[in-house]
């Protein structure tokens, strides 16, 4: 399949106009020794029918959520995705436009961004939000960089209940400016203000920010207000890494004192897609607006007084400030952010609250059911849609057994934790969203029982 439109006659006419004999002449500026004197070694070209065959074959080897009941969580979860989103996103005017550099012909994109920014402000209880980041982890890392710059300090503090991939990403981004990440172990599964206080006191004046999951990686809703207060007393910013669905029900991070709220937008109407693309959201208090990374759209008027929007505060960005930009981000995840705006418009405040409520109810009912199957929750503390279960099977390979039995029974039983938390080697993070049913939870319970007795 080749998508170019030229006929041989077109090519000949254009070459003749250029005074060239062959298209090779147009590459005369590439020294001969740098040219690839052979065809690329790639598999042969396929037509659409053959492509479908190949890709369906690959897709069929994956345990997708149409064929398996998915209880895995940890940042990505099988939430309900309204049917109206996909056809709207598939509109070529959204799908095949780029960054709105020409606002006169990009008002759809720009208005969509302002709506998205508004919704993110409303969810997080903060003043300003940007047009999106790549994902939740990189958004958090950029928030950490903002904190370093703002406070002129070089360390970030977080509990081990902050998702491991988020911690790892912060560490990678901080390696540039030479910042450090200190991780506080929380064996009880949540971060207490006493632990925070002790950690901050160990290095007075060192920490630019404290980053807390809300809810945390184990699903537990941390006492964000207390943590923010302790962080502020030490002169550190408070950054909340949030599950956006939970924000339909929980008090907003802004109201609890967070300076910056970030998170991953997959749950807001985006496909799981093996972990990407989703988007990262980034909201902050007003006073940080000029230090924020990424695109921001703002309202204005045209020459004739009509309302419209434009990209604004662009002097923060790489195309203008270059080496002194607040971030290098250019392309972001605009289409996924639009999915979130459509999702939130379709659900409204009542619908989002219902989703969040159903998550809590389903997850707690499921917790009781699994407890009855011998899989006890590992940690105390109020949880939102996921929690850590300790498997009843005392064998070292209990997790592998449950996962394997699960796959045989059409169930993805949960997210294993051992790689990141060696102490949790017989544990699974189980996520039960609003989309799960009682019958599906029964299947999971049966899988755990079967694995323990096999």
């Amino acid at each position, binding site marked *: 399949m080749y998508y170019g439109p030229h006929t041989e006659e077109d090519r000949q006419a254009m070459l003749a106009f250029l005074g060239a004999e062959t298209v090779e002449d147009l590459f005369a500026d590439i020294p001969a020794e740098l040219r690839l004197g052979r065809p690329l070694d790639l598999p042969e070209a396929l037509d659409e029918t053959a492509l479908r065959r190949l890709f369906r074959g690959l897709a069929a080897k994956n345990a997708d959520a149409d064929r398996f009941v998915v209880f895995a969580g940890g940042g990505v979860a099988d939430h309900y995705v309204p049917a109206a989103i996909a056809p709207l996103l598939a509109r070529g005017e959204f799908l095949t436009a780029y960054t709105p550099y020409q606002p006169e012909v990009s008002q759809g994109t720009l208005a969509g961004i302002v709506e998205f920014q508004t919704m993110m402000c409303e969810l997080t209880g903060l003043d300003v939000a940007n047009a999106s980041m790549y994902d939740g982890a990189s958004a958090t890392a950029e928030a950490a960089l903002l904190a370093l710059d703002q406070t002129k300090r070089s360390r970030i503090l977080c509990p081990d209940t902050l998702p491991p991939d988020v911690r790892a990403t912060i560490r990678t981004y901080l390696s540039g400016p030479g910042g450090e990440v200190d991780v506080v172990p929380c064996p009880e599964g949540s971060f207490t203000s006493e632990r925070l206080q002790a950690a901050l006191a160990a290095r007075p004046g060192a920490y630019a920010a404290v980053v807390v999951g809300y809810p945390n990686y184990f699903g537990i809703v941390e006492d964000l207000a207390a943590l923010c207060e302790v962080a502020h007393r030490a002169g550190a910013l408070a950054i909340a890494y949030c599950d956006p669905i939970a924000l339909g029900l929980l008090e907003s991070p802004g109201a609890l004192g967070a300076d910056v709220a970030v998170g991953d937008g997959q749950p807001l109407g985006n496909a799981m897609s093996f972990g990407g693309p989703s988007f990262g959201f980034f909201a902050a208090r007003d006073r940080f607006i*000029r230090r924020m990374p990424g695109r921001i759209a703002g309202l204005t008027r045209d020459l004739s007084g009509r309302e419209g929007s434009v990209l604004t505060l*662009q*002097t923060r960005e790489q195309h*203008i*400030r270059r080496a*002194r930009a607040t971030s290098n981000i250019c392309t972001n995840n605009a289409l996924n952010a639009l999915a979130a705006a459509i999702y939130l418009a379709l659900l409204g405040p009542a619908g989002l609250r219902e989703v969040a409520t159903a998550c809590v109810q389903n997850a707690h009912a499921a917790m009781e059911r699994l407890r009855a199957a011998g899989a006890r929750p590992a940690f105390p503390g109020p949880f939102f849609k996921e929690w850590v279960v300790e498997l009843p099977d005392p064998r070292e390979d209990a997790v592998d057994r449950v996962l394997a039995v699960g796959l045989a029974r059409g169930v993805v039983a949960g997210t294993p934790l051992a790689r990141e938390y060696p102490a949790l080697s017989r544990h699974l993070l189980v996520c039960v969203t609003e989309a799960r049913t009682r019958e599906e939870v029964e299947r999971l319970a049966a899988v755990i029982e079967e694995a323990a007795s096999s």
Partner: protein
Amino acid sequence: MNVPPDLLYTEEHEWARVEGDRARVGITDHAQSELGDIVYVELPEVGARVAKGQAFGVVESVKSVSDLYAPVSGEVVAVNGALGEAPETVNRDPYGDGWMIEIRMTDPKETESLLRAPEYRRLVE
């Protein structure tokens, strides 16, 4: 191009109005017109120390950022806070209401190396 005769200038297009040990500082008419619509001015706080030739703030248009350089060394004793709300004042009245900071000079002799109006005019024309 408006180049008032009673001011001193830098090659980076700042002006200074010297009275006693004080120098009031802004950017020239030429600078504001080259920048276009000014949208943001970032200035130091009162009490900050500035050094001749060093950046003391930035001025931004929609698509550019320029450093502001101190014409003389000293302590910032006044800052034009009105520019926060209305940065466009710099375009409208660069030598008047669009002033930026006032410096109490530590070394008034530094003014001797600044450009006089005719020299500055030659630089920009």
